[in-house]
């Protein structure tokens, strides 16, 4: 039973707890660039998942054959070949998606998620587990891309999967173009990560900062990478407290939703209204 649970965990961890995009922040480039619509987000997620599953299984099979010193070039070559195959398939069967994703299909090769999972998981685990890990990570990535894509499409163009949203045009609202532009991409992604930090702290009762920092994640490319990301902040001294004893925040202030906090603030407002 315990084993079954851990296998299930292997799959589920990628979706929320170690969501590759929103918690581990790998693969940000495609996440920002192609998520101008829900269908693009979904397509990019599916394409990356396919490559991730295949690369994880191939690398896991070859993990004893590849010498340690040249593993990174070997992985990159495997991944690049898989991406080339995928590009052919997309050109043949979904040319529209291929056109809208454009240059970001070949760039799946350098997506940090794929190399990161190969390095952190596939080269030390069996094929079955590596495939499950890839499925979970892929699902988490796809869900995150889909969420960002839908939000940007609805807010930026007033459509969802290309279908006009009725309540936007009928009420004389105009879609906010900024969300379709690069600036909106950064903003929506930032808000999603903020929401995820909030949620993961509630669900897992752990410090969000600990999950966000790269140093806790073994999937970075090399020891060099870790050395850079571990370098200290410029201002690493303690910030002068604004109120005496800033640690002693009143217990009531620690309640979620008291400080302006997105969803929670709204629900707190609702609670107040209901109380009235």
């Amino acid at each position, binding site marked *: 039973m315990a084993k079954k649970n851990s296998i299930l965990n292997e799959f589920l961890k990628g979706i929320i707890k170690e969501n590759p995009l929103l918690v581990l922040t790998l693969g940000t480039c495609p996440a920002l660039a192609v998520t101008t619509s829900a269908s693009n987000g979904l397509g990019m997620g599916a394409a990356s998942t396919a490559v991730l599953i295949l690369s994880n299984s191939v690398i896991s099979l070859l993990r004893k054959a590849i010498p340690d010193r040249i593993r990174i070039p070997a992985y990159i070559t495997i991944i690049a070949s898989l991406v*080339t195959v995928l590009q052919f398939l997309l050109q043949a069967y979904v040319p529209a998606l291929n056109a809208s994703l454009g240059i970001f299909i070949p760039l799946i*090769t*350098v997506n940090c998620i794929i190399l990161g999972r190969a390095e952190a998981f596939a080269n030390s685990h069996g094929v079955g587990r590596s495939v499950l890990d890839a499925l979970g990570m892929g699902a988490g990535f796809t869900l995150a891309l889909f969420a960002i894509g839908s939000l940007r499409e609805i807010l930026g163009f007033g459509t969802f999967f290309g279908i006009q949203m009725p309540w936007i045009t009928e009420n004389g609202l105009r879609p906010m173009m900024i969300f379709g532009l690069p600036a909106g991409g950064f903003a929506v992604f930032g808000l999603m990560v903020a929401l995820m*930090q909030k949620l993961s702290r509630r669900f897992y009762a752990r410090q*969000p900062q600990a999950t966000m920092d790269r140093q806790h994640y073994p999937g970075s490319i090399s020891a*060099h990478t870790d050395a850079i990301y571990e370098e200290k902040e410029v201002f690493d001294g303690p910030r002068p407290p*604004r109120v005496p004893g800033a640690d002693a925040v009143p217990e009531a202030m620690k309640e979620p939703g008291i400080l302006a906090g997105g969803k929670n603030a709204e629900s707190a407002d609702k609670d107040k209204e209901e109380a009235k």
Partner: protein
Amino acid sequence: MKEMLIILFSVILIDNLVLSRFLGVCSFIGLTKNLKNAMGMSVAVIFVMMVATGITYPVYWSLLEPLKLGYLQTVVFILVIASVVQVLEAIIRKLFPPLYKAMGIYLPLITTNCAILGVMLINIQETYHFGGAMMSSFGAGVGYMLAMFLFSGVREKMAKADIPEFMKGLPITLMAASIVSVSFMGFKGVIENLFG
């Protein structure tokens, strides 16, 4: 000459690599915590980008294209980039130790920086001539440097600010990047006005 300038200005300001094409966002967020790292990485990126374009451009147009092997570009380019990085690292370590000290640690990171592969692919896609391709790589690198430079300044200021708990870390960084990106939108139309 005019064409070269148009390419240069448009890749630096309008199609800025990081802020409007979203290439190299990982390093943009990971390495802008302080100015020194940001500049070291940018110099390394410009260097590798120029050398890699100098190799991949002739390889594509004189080897892959005539042999109808254009579809192999991803595999070939990534191998070229990986080997250029390896060779450069060895050469710089041997010949220019101070330079290696300054940018050596960034070189291994560059292989998986999507900015490099992205620019190689864009150069082929846009069918620039050789000079144009080199200029576009140089401009893209300078654009990357500009974005890194500006943003590391923003982040140093941000470190002093008092930020709500749930926005700390990555979210506020992304929001700041969004605002920097808005400011770059102001350059739209600069090319038409400058070069008629």
